[in-house]
């Protein structure tokens, strides 16, 4: 009797929470189950904080059977400067590219994805691995949920990973913004942390995982206002920035060698691109030496440090990312002569 009363009362008390969790699961707000916004049920609001990494991995696993991807881009958010469509113009006619790069990730993420591909695709015909020093020294899975390597690839707990999304996002401020927008279809400034504004210009390519950042549209619309705003904010600091030494670790060596082994097995035509970064700090000599030793001099292309690509601020959308036209210039330099 006591138990019945307790469960009933507890259920009544918890019913609003249960209803909300159920709603968010069915609607798949975080796109955990439906990677494609076009197929997700009732999905009509876009959120900040969807994991690009999860989105890309889900998209790949759902579409690979049809698309038969054979050319892959790996890296952190800087790799977004390389558009699969452009890259394929330098490759063969059968090129079907997929962009695996994800913000804040590192070598661990790329290594796991390459191992995963080794298991699930017939051939990794082409690969671009876009690296920088921060990328190379990230040799374990991220603790940040939004950057974490998805469990399909990392082979870590799927249950904990999905739980993490609910833990991270099911808070009152997010839900308030969500339901407010759902009911009134009006974007209000307070929603900034949760809801993507309707005029957001970022684009996600649901065929090959490419992302175009919203800054690109802003620059193209009015580049002088855009850059003046950044200059006023002190975005473009004086350079070269102080160099931070990161030692080469055993894990880094192992992961790079295993990547090489997979590429060898697939007879992959791969290129290791060291990103041109605004700070004009060259990749650490020992990291560069390691890349050359493992992959060979003809495979490694170093664009870091002070050079024509890192000089104009117009090549950067802020002090972190270089723009797609720079990616295209790099591809031209690499493949143009071949």
């Amino acid at each position, binding site marked *: 009797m006591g138990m019945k009363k*307790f469960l009933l009362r507890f259920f009544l008390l918890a019913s609003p929470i249960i209803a909300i969790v159920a709603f968010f699961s069915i609607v798949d707000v975080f796109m955990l189950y439906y990677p494609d916004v076009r197929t997700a049920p009732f999905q009509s609001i876009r959120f900040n904080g969807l994991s690009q990494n999860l989105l890309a991995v889900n998209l790949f696993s759902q579409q690979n059977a049809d698309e038969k991807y054979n050319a892959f881009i790996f890296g952190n958010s800087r790799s977004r400067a390389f558009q699969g469509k452009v890259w394929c113009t330098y490759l063969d006619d059968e090129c079907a590219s997929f962009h695996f790069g994800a913000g804040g990730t590192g070598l661990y993420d790329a290594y796991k994805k390459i191992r995963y591909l080794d298991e699930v695709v017939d051939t990794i015909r082409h690969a671009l691995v876009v690296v920088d020093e921060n990328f190379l020294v990230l040799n374990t899975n991220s603790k940040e949920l939004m950057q974490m390597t998805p469990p399909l690839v990392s*082979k*870590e*707990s799927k249950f*904990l990973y999905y*739980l993490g999304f609910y*833990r991270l996002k099911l808070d009152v*401020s997010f839900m308030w913004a969500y339901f407010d927008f759902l009911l009134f279809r009006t974007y209000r400034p307070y929603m900034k942390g949760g809801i993507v504004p309707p005029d957001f210009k970022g684009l996600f390519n649901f065929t090959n995982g490419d992302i175009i950042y919203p800054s690109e549209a802003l620059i193209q619309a009015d580049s002088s206002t855009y850059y003046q705003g950044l200059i006023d904010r002190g975005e473009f600091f004086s350079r070269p920035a102080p160099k931070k030494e990161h030692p080469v670790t055993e894990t880094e060596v192992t992961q790079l060698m295993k990547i090489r082994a997979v590429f060898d097995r697939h007879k992959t035509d791969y290129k290791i691109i060291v990103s041109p970064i605004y700070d004009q700090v060259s990749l650490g000599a020992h990291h560069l030496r390691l890349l050359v030793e493992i992959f060979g001099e003809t495979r490694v292309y170093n664009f870091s440090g002070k050079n024509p690509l890192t000089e104009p601020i117009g090549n950067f959308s802020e002090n972190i990312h270089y723009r797609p036209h720079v990616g295209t210039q790099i591809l031209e330099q690499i493949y143009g002569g071949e």
Partner: protein
Amino acid sequence: MSWPKYSPMLFNSLEFGLFFPLVFLIYWIVLGKWVKAQNFFLLLASYFFYGWWDWRFLILLFSSSCIDFIIGLELGRVSDQEKRKGLLGISILVNLGILGFFKYYHFFVHSFVNAFTLLGVNFTADRMAIILPVGLSFYTFQSMSYSIDIYRGNLQPTRNSITFLTFVSFFPQLVAGPIERASHLLPQIVKKRTFEYEQAADGVRQILWGLFKKVVIADGCAVYVEMVFSDPASHTGSSLLLGGCLFLIQVYGDFSGYSDIALGSARLLGFRLMQNFAFPFFARDVAEFWRRWNISVTTWFRDYVYIPLGGSRGSIWSKVRNTFLVFLACGFWHGANWTFILWGFAHAVLFLPSLLLNRNRQYLDTVAAGKRLPSAPELMQMMKTFILLALVTIIFRVDNLGAGWIYFTHLFSSSLVSLPDLGMTNDFKALLVFMFLIEWQGRERQHALERIETQWPKIIRYFLYYLLLILISLYAKNGQTFIYFQF
């Protein structure tokens, strides 16, 4: 595939939010009629809970429990005093040996090397990568007290291994206490338990309040605490003092919040664990504070260290010695760092005057019992005690003695007489006041929300429940671990 590494199953995690209801339903609905089955299930659930962090350390938990179980049986059988002493010695040696190895190995090696370096002899010692098992200090003390109580003749050994293993590993209190006494918990495990609505409802309220203290208060304080402790030199003396106060509140919110969730969870399973915090911020002096703070650990040290040493009987010298020894041991129990030892020392210094003046038991009641507000002198006493404790707790937080020195030299500077500037939001200040108010109104009870169903109108109660849920949800993003897990 390598075995994945996870953090312990935190009470403020969704994992526990799924684990506990499942255990609760199976425990009562499926197994409610069979106490032995319930106990076996509790044991499995407890091992699962612990193994969630790292299954390898289940072997340590199991083997140390088995040793104390066997020693308990032998102590019950053997009457020869020498043999009994030997058996007790083995139990203490094993438990302290495990604790010493996992918790203090690095400390001793490091101190040893440093001591020789000071003497001009330089050598290096290889460091083993030793992981400190979660909750080790708690379950070894609980297990050890079982052997000591049987040795003293205060307890009959249990002959049921499942009962004993459940006693040591009971998951609500396994990793951060309260450290239960066998005489209190074992009889509850043995007897048939019946579900009682009032107990269960009160358990839920206690969990809710515990979550609020942990997620909103402790984790909220952590932001400001980290700010001042990471760079004390760049803050004013008043900000550093406020940082110390916030750290004391953080530790309280963290540890008492954990204890509330542990006690509430246990009550939902039909157990009553000992109260671990009795509103220590309303203590009028340091002696009263120690009767209200981390009660299970302080009474453990009192019963198993202080009293065997002679307690407060004997000469002044022995009183002083015993007080220092017990506080130093308590400090060292918290961690292998000189800061913890100094923290224990400082508490002994604060405690000593009231002991020597025989005033250590002058506040055995609750402040302003039966009244709405404290008198002005009572308020002053509470504030003075709080500030003193906040200053001492700074030593608990700093990384090393050097960092502590920097903190205190900047604190006791001319900038102490200024307005603190930590950028605390008004929302958070209001939440701190809210916590103190709720705790104040509940200070004569076991926990702040106990029995509110008989005193508060339904609408206000439900408003409070939802308010707490909303606040917990708003602040729950960080999912910080509990401070006392490291002990």
